[in-house]
């Protein structure tokens, strides 16, 4: 599990600004109170028309339409509407949307007694691509082997599928992986070791059904058939995208629209917001700048003036499984001592750091696992989530003194350039840590360069201003991916605190073999222990999803894993 999972630049994430390198989605109701308050999941019982075209735009573009490579949040949103997977999450908000359900598979897989082999039954023709080609067990064998093909350069293959038997050393298609076998309509996947989270991995869009003749292409295919409710009818890179109803789709997922048109993929945020306000656009997942949130909530939020007049709530704030944190580099002298890292957690003013991102951006928090993620309920809050008091600062100073380090300490912070809210949050951090004798020196990079530099072992960085969105609702995706010492490659890493404590590595590996509540409890306990005794981060915010719609949009469902569900959206009568 070496590659970045779903990370979202906290930096670049001004209310869903840039979805660079990010993907995965995150949101759910249930947990983590939101500043803005709104009906999570939106509204679905309004008189609506069947059909019509939804006019959509995006600010941060989509990266790929190739499921093996697509990793932006907006890309996954499109794939949720166009993909069929072995298992999928329902088109529901809240906890109901986190329940894995068979989709192309006729039922949940049978698991061998040693817990290493999963056997799925995939009835041929239950689903068909928009070309008429049936989805079969071999379809998924091809998709997974394509992900694993080194020439495909898929994050998913390199990160989540390495435990499949024969994956290591696999040379690529057309050869088969020994751990993926198809017999009739049976697909058997054998792992090298038990992984209770495996089913969540094959439910990500990376494991989407693709036609069997889809070639290996590390740059991604430019067109691809879909077996989901919709398919991608046209994509002009960086410009536009059109989704149309899949004529062969017979599955249970709802779909009201005839067409979903992304008229612009890199629209200016202010322009997008104006067009949404005026009804020229129906939806834009990442258009609203944080500075507009307060006003939009006043007008279009649950108690907004316009909402009261029309009964149509258009602005929604929904808690999501997204964490914003400062990774403290344990491999460099400044933060080598756990007491100094504890001091940072006592000293930072989490609400003040959040403020530049705008109203409703998130809820200040100090846990590794955001409340919208299973397992969070078992992690204890240990540090101030309100502005630190004089006592908190004294405690932080005492910890620094106890650590025996010489102050002032200098901490080089890597952050995202070109986003005022990020640099303003950095200013608050700088002021906070100056109080305890730590001089923060921010360095700004483009988001891609920042991520690349931070992930290079030996980098001269002490603090990484980072964020992470779930790939799927499981604590493994946060803990093992971001904090395991086994996940520190020379380049391309995402354990930005370079946290490598054998005790925790073992505990996390063990937790991954557990399932159900025991799994969540184990991860929650590990996270609590880490933050109490050896904090790798200073987490500061549980980020929300923020959605603003045009006046014509009726049905909206904010799913936990794929933000706003395009499939269930409809136009009002």
């Amino acid at each position: 599990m070496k590659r970045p999972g779903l990370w979202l630049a906290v930096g670049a994430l001004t209310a869903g600004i840039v979805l660079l390198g990010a993907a995965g989605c995150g949101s759910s109701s249930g947990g983590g109170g939101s500043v803005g308050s709104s009906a999570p999941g939106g509204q679905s019982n309004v008189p609506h028309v069947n059909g019509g075209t939804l006019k959509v735009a995006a600010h941060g573009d989509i990266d790929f339409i190739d499921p093996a490579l697509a990793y932006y949040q907006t890309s996954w949103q499109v794939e949720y509407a166009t993909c069929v997977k072995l298992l999928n999450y329902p088109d529901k908000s809240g906890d109901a949307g986190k329940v894995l359900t068979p989709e192309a598979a006729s039922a949940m897989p049978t698991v061998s007694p040693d817990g290493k082999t999963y056997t799925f039954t995939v009835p041929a023709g239950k689903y068909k691509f928009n070309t008429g080609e049936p989805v079969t067990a071999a379809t998924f064998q091809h998709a997974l082997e394509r992900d694993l093909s080194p020439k495909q350069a898929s994050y998913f293959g390199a990160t989540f599928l390495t435990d499949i038997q024969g994956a290591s050393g696999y040379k690529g298609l057309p050869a088969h992986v020994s751990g993926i076998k198809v017999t009739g309509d049976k697909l058997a996947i054998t792992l090298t070791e038990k992984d209770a989270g495996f089913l969540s991995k094959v439910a990500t869009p990376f494991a989407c059904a693709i036609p069997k003749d889809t070639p290996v292409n590390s740059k991604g295919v430019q067109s691809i058939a879909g077996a989901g409710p919709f398919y991608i009818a046209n994509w002009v890179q960086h410009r536009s995208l059109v989704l149309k109803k899949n004529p062969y789709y017979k599955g249970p997922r709802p779909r009201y629209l005839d067409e979903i048109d992304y008229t612009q993929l890199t629209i200016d945020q202010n322009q997008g917001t104006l067009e949404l306000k005026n009804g020229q656009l129906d939806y834009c997942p990442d258009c609203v700048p944080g500075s507009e949130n307060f006003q939009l909530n006043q007008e279009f939020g649950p108690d907004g003036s316009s909402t009261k007049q029309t009964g149509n709530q258009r602005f929604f704030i929904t808690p999501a499984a997204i964490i914003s944190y400062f990774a403290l580099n344990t491999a460099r002298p400044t933060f080598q001592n756990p007491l100094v890292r504890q001091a940072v957690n006592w000293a930072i003013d989490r609400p003040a750091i959040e403020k530049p991102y705008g109203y409703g951006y998130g809820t200040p928090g100090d846990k590794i696992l955001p409340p919208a993620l299973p397992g969070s309920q078992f992690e204890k809050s240990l540090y101030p989530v309100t502005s630190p008091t004089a006592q908190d600062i004294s405690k932080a100073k005492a910890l620094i003194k106890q650590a025996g380090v010489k102050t002032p300490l200098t901490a080089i912070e890597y952050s995202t350039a070109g986003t005022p809210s990020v640099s303003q949050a950095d200013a608050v951090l700088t002021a906070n840590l100056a109080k305890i004798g730590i001089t923060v020196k921010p360095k700004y990079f483009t988001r891609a360069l920042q991520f690349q530099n931070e992930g290079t072992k030996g980098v001269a960085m002490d603090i990484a201003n980072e964020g992470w969105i779930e790939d799927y609702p499981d604590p493994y995706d946060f803990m093992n991916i971001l904090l395991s010492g086994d996940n520190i490659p020379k380049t391309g890493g995402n354990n930005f605190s370079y946290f490598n404590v054998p005790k925790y590595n073992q505990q996390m590996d063990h937790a991954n073999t557990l399932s159900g509540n025991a799994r969540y409890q184990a991860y929650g306990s590990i996270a609590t222990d880490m933050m109490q005794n050896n904090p790798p981060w200073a987490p500061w915010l549980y980020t929300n999803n923020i959605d603003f719609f045009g006046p014509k949009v009726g049905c909206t469902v904010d799913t936990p894993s794929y933000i706003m569900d395009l499939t269930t959206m409809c136009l009002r009568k």
Partner: protein
Amino acid sequence: MASERTTLVPGAAAVGGTSVSGEIEGSGDAIRARGYWEQAWIRFKRDRVAMASGVVIILIVLVAFIGAPIASHVLGHGPNDINSNAVINYAPAGPWTTVKNLDGTGSSLYVLGASDAVGRDEFLRVLSGARVSLEVAIIATVIGVFIGVVLGTLAGFYGGLMDTVVSRMTEIVMAFPLLLFAIGIAATIGARLNSYTMFGIFVPGIVTLIIIISVFSWYYPARIVRAQVLSLREKEYVEAAKMVGCSNFRIMRSHLLPHLVGTIIVYGTLTVATNILFEAALSYLGVGLPPPNASWGNLLSDAVTWYTVQPWLIVWPGVAILITTLAFNLLGDGLRDAIDPRSTL
């Protein structure tokens, strides 16, 4: 009518004018003819717009380098100091707002309001931005014009291969898409250059901006100077200087450069205005001064975020840029008119 005895004053030719000295016959009062620069100064003084522009520029310089620290002292906080009390409903406080200090020691007046979501003082940041803009624009202009004058003089005087090389270099640089190229440089090596502050004289990022802007400021003066030198080198006094054995360096320094002073001053003044806009453009695009220091460009850039909530934030740096560039442009126009020997008193 009294007749005049006319004497050429050595060096008068060097500034393109004729100085006259003599006395009115029978009066016994010596009269002194006006020198070239004196005439220019008289002409300049009569141009009220240019004079006003000069005064405005002096005021801006005083405000930037002296006024800003005084204002900081009086208001009790600096341009980069944050104050969450100056953020109301997640938006910066408006103009003329009194805000409680964070440490609870009273309150401060935010004359132009807060500039952003962490409550920095817009007034102090506009003043601080003035210093950045002037430092960058003036130093970059001086460097650019210096390079341009040296290369233009060499090309014009020597001609031949030297002229070909300089001319082709000029054309190559002119063919570059400047803004894109500048953004490219700033985005790649800018972060590394930002650490150079010339022993703390400048805030981080200024050296980068100066280098980038200088690189693109030299070719116009080079072309103008080259053209003038091509004409001047054929003058009799240059030939005379050659005949008496003056070195090329001396000819360029003593007989050519003085003729170029007027042009250089006028062009330099206009270039300062252009460079202020260039700096603002780079900062606006996020490749100028890194946070938290303010420049007019990044203040404008940040203000766009608040254009529906606090539209004034666009106005303040915008007006500052407008006034300063206008003043430099009008001053340049005035100087050009004043220095032009064909102008009449």
